[in-house]
């Protein structure tokens, strides 16, 4: 990667900075690694995968050159398995559970999964078929991983499925929110295409609650599945948030995925507020966009940070600096209304709060100024309160009330899955793989309900 400090960045360099960081496995590399797998019985890796991919089986198939079967194993259990191979925190999941951790190196399960799903992307094969038609109609609100996964399973079970998606393209955060250098948009869009190929009707540019009402869905469909995920990053609630140069991290990442890469960040000093994975993504995107200096500021310490250790490492390697126990209090602009400085206060850790983490408290008279050009907020995601209210569903500050067995909301006809239910709390980040699994399970619950 070229950074602003070392050389003069060009538009071509910028583009290259957003190419996938990790290379594909070479064919021999994949076979060698696949042959290292022990083919465990009742394998812990498989149990550690939220979607329950039969890991030893798909790896064995790579070893024997049966890449089609391998890809099928993966995508059967996980309709967004190509995305997951790139974005899953594997060291916390399958690879963390691999028995070889104890005696050698864990199998590179994520990379092997990527190898097999790459094959599927490169070869036009139909791995799945729609089921025998059942004369039942299901509406899915939101075409992210949860919605796509549910749609595919419902189609395989023979239901007619329509996805209503607010954005121009489906895929949710896979398409718009996860940085390109880890997940190229093409991967997410290929997964969308696979779902469409099964005969799922995806109506994009269609916001439920605006372009079509919840009532219409309830009337026209036998069941409705809500998989709208979460919303934008909430405001910090400090002075100066409307100045030019202040961004929402998710919107910022989305711009790098949907618009021509801008040269406006080259040489700039940026601050990202928050220390979850989204903050890391925004910070590394800024570095790759040419920012001269990028700091992540967080009011607690490294200990409480919710970003995964490997993400933290990645950011440090990209040159991101971290300022712990630092809380922004005011953004100061120049005459033209552009960010000039950030006022912060130094914090210390006090008594533990409900989450068990020590609550940060400001140190008196510790406020100081930082010269910055860009401020990015990455302090979590807001909830789709309006929509949930429009559906008339019970929720707790936007977190839907759900029956964990039936995936039903407070309305028996309406089901829900993904981030809209389980999404990020302060305790950790939501994952694509969990959204996919919940989508699957909601689909089976709907099928059960509609079949009786």
């Amino acid at each position, binding site marked *: 990667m070229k950074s602003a400090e070392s050389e003069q960045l060009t538009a071509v360099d910028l583009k290259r900075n957003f190419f996938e960081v990790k290379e594909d496995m070479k064919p021999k590399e994949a*076979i*060698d690694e*696949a*042959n290292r797998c*022990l*083919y*465990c*019985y*009742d*394998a*812990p890796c498989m149990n550690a995968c939220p979607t329950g991919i039969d890991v030893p089986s798909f790896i064995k198939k790579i*070893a024997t050159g049966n890449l089609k079967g391998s890809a099928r194993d993966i995508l059967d259990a996980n309709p967004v398995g190509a995305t997951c191979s790139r974005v899953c925190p594997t060291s916390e999941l399958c690879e963390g559970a691999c*028995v*070889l951790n*104890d*005696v050698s190196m864990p199998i590179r399960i994520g990379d092997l999964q990527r190898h097999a799903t790459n094959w599927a992307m490169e070869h036009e094969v139909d791995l799945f078929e729609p089921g025998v038609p059942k004369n039942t109609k299901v509406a899915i609100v939101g075409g992210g991983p949860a919605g796509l996964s549910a749609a595919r399973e419902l189609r395989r079970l023979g239901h007619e499925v329509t996805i209503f998606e607010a954005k121009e393209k489906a895929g949710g955060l896979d398409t718009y929110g996860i940085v390109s250098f880890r997940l190229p948009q093409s991967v997410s869009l290929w997964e969308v295409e696979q779902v469409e190929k099964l005969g799922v009707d995806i109506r994009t540019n269609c916001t439920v609650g605006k372009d079509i009402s919840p009532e219409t869905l309830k009337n026209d469909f036998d069941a409705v599945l809500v998989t709208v995920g979460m919303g934008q990053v909430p405001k910090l609630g400090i002075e100066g948030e409307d100045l030019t140069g202040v961004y929402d991290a998710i919107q910022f990442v989305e711009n790098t995925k949907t618009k021509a890469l801008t040269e406006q960040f080259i040489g700039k000093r940026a601050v990202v507020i928050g220390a979850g994975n989204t903050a890391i993504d925004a910070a590394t995107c800024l570095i790759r966009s040419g920012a001269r200096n990028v700091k992540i500021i967080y009011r607690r310490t490294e200990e409480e940070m919710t970003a995964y250790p490997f993400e933290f490492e990645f950011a440090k390697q990209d040159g991101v600096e971290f300022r712990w126990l630092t809380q922004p209090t005011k953004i100061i602009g120049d005459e033209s209304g552009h960010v000039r400085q950030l006022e912060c206060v130094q914090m210390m850790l006090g008594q533990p709060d409900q989450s068990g983490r020590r609550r940060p408290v400001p140190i008196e008279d510790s406020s100081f100024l930082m010269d910055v050009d860009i401020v990015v907020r990455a302090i979590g995601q807001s909830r789709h309160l309006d929509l949930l209210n429009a559906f008339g569903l019970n929720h707790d500050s936007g977190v839907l009330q759900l029956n964990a067995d039936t995936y039903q909301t407070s309305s028996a006809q309406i089901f829900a899955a993904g981030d809209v239910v389980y999404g990020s709390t302060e305790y950790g980040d939501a994952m694509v793989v969990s959204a996919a699994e919940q989508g699957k399970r909601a689909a089976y619950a709907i099928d059960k309900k509609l079949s009786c």
Partner: protein
Amino acid sequence: MADLSVNLAGIKSPNPFWLASAPPTNSGYQVQRAFEAGWGGAVWKTLGDPVINVSSRFSASTFNGQKVAGFNNIELITDRPLEVNLKEIYETKKKFPNHAIVASLMVEPKQEKWHEIVKKVEAIGVDGLELNFGCPHGMAERGMGSASGQVPELVEKQTHWVKEVAETPVIVKLTPNITDVTATAYAAVQGGADSISLINTINSLMGVDIHSWNTIPHVSGKGTHGGYCGPAVKPIALNMVAECARHPEINVPISGIGGISNWQDAIEFMLMGSTNVQVCTAAMHHGFRIVEDMIDGLNNYLDEKGLARAMDLVGQTVSKYQNWGDLDLNYKVAARINPDKCINCNKCYISCEDTSHQCIDRLLDANGKSYLKVREDDCVGCNLCSIVCPVDGAIDMIEYPSEVEMTWNERQSLLGKMTIGEETVS
């Protein structure tokens, strides 16, 4: 430093590692490079009427990504005129007087043919002769190689013809493509052989290309059976060596061949009665330099065991190799899984459950952590679990020596005396 030198029926070499008669010993250039690398001897690529070879000759089996688990060839004997080979043998011997050079020979089963070649070869000075009664392909169709090596009378007769004129020790190289190798080994001894070497390659078809449906390898779309060697054949070769070694009437020294890839393999063959070993595939896979570790490993092993000479190894295990009927039925081993080392891959569990005696239990400890335990009473001691276990030391086969030894033969003789109706013995 132990004394690694060996003496096979009078043929001396600085160490037991010889190159077998095959492509590595095709020419003086190669054999000299081999001696420089450390090989103690070489059996020259088989001499005889120069042949014409086909192109596309070798193939190998890959197992779970491991290349050259077995190796197959449809090559014949030397394709160079005898004089050229003899000149190079002469030059090589002059440069390396202390290394063993043995000439491998194959001619039609006619007395005058054997006399002619033996005299010519011995005239330029070799340390010994090896009669190739082994190659299973090509030459066999012409009545030579394994075609004569499979018929004990032909082995005996040809060995005898050679012995009529030979002045150097005669080694007879045996083919494994026979039901009982001791029959031809015995015939060689009867013919006057000073030593036997085994095994040559095993009849094989390496594979079929599932895309083109051609054989592997194929020569312009047609294939033929070849000779199999390399690591995959080692157990077969070792058994054949052992059967000859323990045979009371096959009392000549043995040169062991077949799948030997490192010093451990070589030691096994020596313990089983080989005075030296010959290697082909391992050298073809990795080059002559692999002998360095063979020598070093053998030397360290001998030092560790406190043995002064490599020859002290020869035959030490032979007396332990017996008939099944002489094994103690009351000896028991049972598997024990060591929870500290076990990584919980469950491979032992599923192999025992599905394919052996269902005596491994999956249990939960007080903390809810799963662990595996063998019901030792039900364990028959088949070893399968410890074979499939990927971690050294995670499964021990615990020995339970018998209080009363009872072999099947003993039991049978007892039963013979106890047939119903006969008088009481107990």
